[in-house]
């Protein structure tokens, strides 16, 4: 993984991630979220996690984003009108996130492993789709089936929620 690739992908991810919460137009926010997730997928691939990177593009940039845009256009949201900002809540939010990030930065700075480079992979290691698949259907077979039931329950829940009148 070359440093230039890492910094370009992470800058892409962070700039468009910030654009998600800065934009006042919800459609622009949703499209910024797609670009941010593409940068994240590039970071996954720079970590040799190709399967997770592909899943990230398929699920987030594909399915989740279409869902967000669909809902935004269904509700016909326009650019939200400027409201009076509650300055106490705004300053509190900024302060809490600054303190949180400072704390995180201190913890990462103290981590001994954080300054070590990544160890090299063996040149002939098997591809990661095979390894993840073996684990998924072997060790994690029960959680995998439970996830299937969870998705079924979510589907039924969405259908019940989106009926015209709730009883």
């Amino acid at each position, binding site marked *: 993984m070359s440093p230039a690739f890492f910094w370009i992908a992470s800058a892409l991810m962070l700039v468009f991630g910030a654009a998600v919460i800065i934009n006042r137009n919800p459609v622009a926010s949703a499209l910024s979220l797609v670009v941010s997730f593409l940068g994240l997928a590039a970071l996954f691939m720079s970590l040799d996690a190709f399967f*997770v990177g592909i899943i990230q593009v398929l699920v987030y940039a594909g399915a989740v984003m279409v869902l967000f845009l669909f809902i935004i256009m269904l509700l016909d949201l326009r650019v939200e009108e400027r409201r009076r900002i509650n300055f106490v809540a705004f300053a509190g939010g900024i302060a809490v996130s600054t303190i949180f990030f400072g704390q995180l930065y201190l913890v990462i700075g103290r981590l001994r492993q954080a300054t070590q480079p990544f160890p090299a992979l063996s040149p002939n290691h098997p591809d990661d789709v095979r390894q993840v698949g073996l684990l998924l259907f072997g060790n994690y077979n029960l959680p995998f089936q439970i996830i299937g039931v969870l998705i079924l329950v979510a589907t039924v829940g969405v259908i019940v929620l989106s009926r015209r009148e709730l009883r």
Partner: protein
Amino acid sequence: MVTLGDYLFVSGLLFTIGFSGVLLRRNIIIIFMSLELMLNAANLSLVAFSRFRVDSLGMPNYHAQVFVFFIITVAAAEVAVGLAVIVALYRARRTIHVEDINTLKF
């Protein structure tokens, strides 16, 4: 040379962006997108640790990547249900501003 600390730093920055989005924005759909950003920041640090813990055969720790797979699946289900709740809320109250939805406050 890119180290584990760089990935954790970027992941923490992404989490902070999502966190401040939840605290600062009042549009419930944007808050939902910020939640997705936070979930993905956690995924990034999991994958970075997976690549860092190389075992004796020279393979990364794939258990973390399976965990990321589960997180992505649960997040997708959560998005579907959450957006359906938002649509039901909009039908009932004609608003998606969290400041206007204060029935349970106090």
